[in-house]
């Protein structure tokens, strides 16, 4: 697989954008600056970015409650995302979506979902339109190990396979559905379920390595674009933070030794080391990238602060194309 240097550097930049954005969002939740909660992608950046970078700009993507990383990984501007988290009028969804329901159609992000598994059929439909309209696009559905036990996934895998749809089913296996260990509620290996639907199933054991994720997903998107149909890619990864920010669970459901081992495999730090070792960039260049990303995150917070809150009338907007009744 060819991976030019600018692609490698863009991977690191996008992983950093997710890391710093989510670190800031986490702080803002704790300070009460973001209402409700957020689910961070900290620790899962390689899995997110490796997948997103294997997509072309015009390709489609849907996601889930662990939501910020997906549009950021696909190249969305940070300001409107941060403004959305705060509930402001200049948010990417005008303040009506919030953290769990981000969407940025400009970059092919068709929407995150607060209902586990619920966006998988939407991604399947985007693949259907790509096939019927013959526009060469590919669709990717992000879902977790929890959603791997939702029926709609298997309806979608079956229909995609019989129709030869250009879609990648991307399982982000962070090994816990909130506090429930995946292996206690999941029979067998998720990736092997692909065989039952006559499609390739690939398991990326080291989901902290962005290149391993990228190569696996790129194989799947190339296959989809060539008209060879869907694939299932399962990426094993780990979330570094709690399920959601501010959540306190009395029992320590994650083994401390396990957690410590995974924390050592920080995808952002690992890839920085790789880039330096391979001579793709030196420390000064990577420090400059860090500073640029920090400035971008700072600017996104400023953008959110400068944005007004939506008027109450906005609560009645966008329900229908032409307003009627209370939406008038």
């Amino acid at each position, binding site marked *: 697989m060819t991976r030019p240097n600018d692609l490698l550097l863009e991977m690191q930049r996008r992983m950093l954008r997710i890391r710093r954005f989510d670190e800031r969002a986490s702080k803002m939740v704790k300070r009460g600056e973001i209402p409700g909660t957020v689910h961070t992608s900290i620790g899962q950046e390689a899995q997110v970015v490796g997948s997103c970078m294997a997509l072309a700009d015009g390709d489609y993507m849907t996601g889930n409650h662990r939501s910020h990383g997906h549009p950021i990984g696909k190249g969305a501007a940070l300001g409107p995302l941060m403004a959305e988290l705060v509930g402001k009028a200049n948010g990417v969804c005008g303040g*009506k979506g919030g953290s769990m329901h981000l969407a940025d*159609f400009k970059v092919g992000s068709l929407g995150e*979902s607060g209902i586990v598994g*619920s966006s998988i059929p939407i991604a399947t*439909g985007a693949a*259907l339109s790509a096939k019927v309209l013959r526009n060469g696009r590919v669709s990717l559905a992000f879902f977790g190990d929890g959603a791997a036990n939702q029926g709609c996934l298997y309806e979608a895998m*079956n229909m995609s396979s*019989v129709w030869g749809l250009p879609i990648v089913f991307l399982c982000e296996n962070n090994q816990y559905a909130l506090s429930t260990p995946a292996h206690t509620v999941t029979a067998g290996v998720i990736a092997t379920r692909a065989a039952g639907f006559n499609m390739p199933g690939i398991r990326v054991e080291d989901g902290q390595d962005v290149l391993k994720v990228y190569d696996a997903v790129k194989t799947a998107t190339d296959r989809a674009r060539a008209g060879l149909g869907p694939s299932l890619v399962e990426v094993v990864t780990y979330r570094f933070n709690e399920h959601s920010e501010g959540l306190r669970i009395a029992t320590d459901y994650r083994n401390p030794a396990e957690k410590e081992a995974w924390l050592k495999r920080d995808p952002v730090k690992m890839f920085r080391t790789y880039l330096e070792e391979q001579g793709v960039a030196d420390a000064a260049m990577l420090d400059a990238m860090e500073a640029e990303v920090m400035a971008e995150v700072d600017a996104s917070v400023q953008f959110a602060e400068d944005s007004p809150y939506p008027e109450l009338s906005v609560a009645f907007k966008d329900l229908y*194309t032409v307003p009627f009744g209370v939406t008038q």
Partner: protein
Amino acid sequence: MTVMSFLGAIGAAQREAMEADPRVIIMGEDVEANVYGTMGGKSRADKGDFLQMFGSDRIRNTPISEEVMVGAAAGAAMTGLRPIVDLSYSSFLYMAMDQFVNQVAKNRYMFGGQASLPVVFRSAMFYGLNTGAHHSDRPYPMFMNVPGLKIMVPATPTDAKGLLRTAIDMDDPVLSFEACLLWGLKEDVDEGEFRIPFGVARTVRAGTDVTIVAISTGVHVALQAAAKLEAEGISVEIIDPRTMVPLDSEAILNAVARTGRLVIVDPAHTTCGAAAEISAIVAEKAFDCLKAPIMRVTTPDTQIPFSPAIEKQLYPDAAKTIDAVRKVMAGRSRGAA
């Protein structure tokens, strides 16, 4: 004009839309075999069928997987297609409730207007045909409780053709509830393209003493009742809302202002049904016009039994409607002791 059945009119609207716009596709169980109204002509042999006319890319038999069928149609609509989904029986919509409520209805709103959802979900209400509880539902009221969906309930071939064409051309998601008891109903229908707007009720029959708002098969029940009541000297006006969302409440309120009496014939269940909503609107906005309490003729809150001996009695019929009209006619005038 040509004589069309209700089902033929549905087929004609779909054929017109398929011919007019290559982004329109039909997907559902058994659509290749033209089972539920996808056929425009009298037979495959005489008019050619949709599969022959439009090809397998646009006429898609789906697996029996309602959840992905509904969600994929929404996703396809969000990315440039204009799908018509044939869900066959209305009771099957429940299999896809998450997709209807959390995706179809919410995506345009929740994403701040970024998503457009030009998609139509057709389903047939098989009540009155001894198909038992799993096939006899009239579920449009529960979807009236979900903001973001539009709902059509045509009662005639003309309305079925004109409303369905509007629905397919519209950028909002529409649920079409088609009563099977009406499938064979025939009338003269314009074979050319025409569209009937949503949210505009039809005055089925003019009258001065009492207004009946009637839904779906309720329109035909009301017509039978009105003919009999006329012989008794009671003049009945019948209003068919045709779409439940948007609802032409203005036409209903104006009618009640004229007659002062309201009976609603709605084949759905009583509690939180369409009749309940219409009653509430009239009670809130036209209470002063009412000369008698509002009467509902609905299906009582029980499930539908299979046995032909005990099914049909549950639905609104002419006798129950006549009874309700007599009651409102006997109702005390305002101010009377």
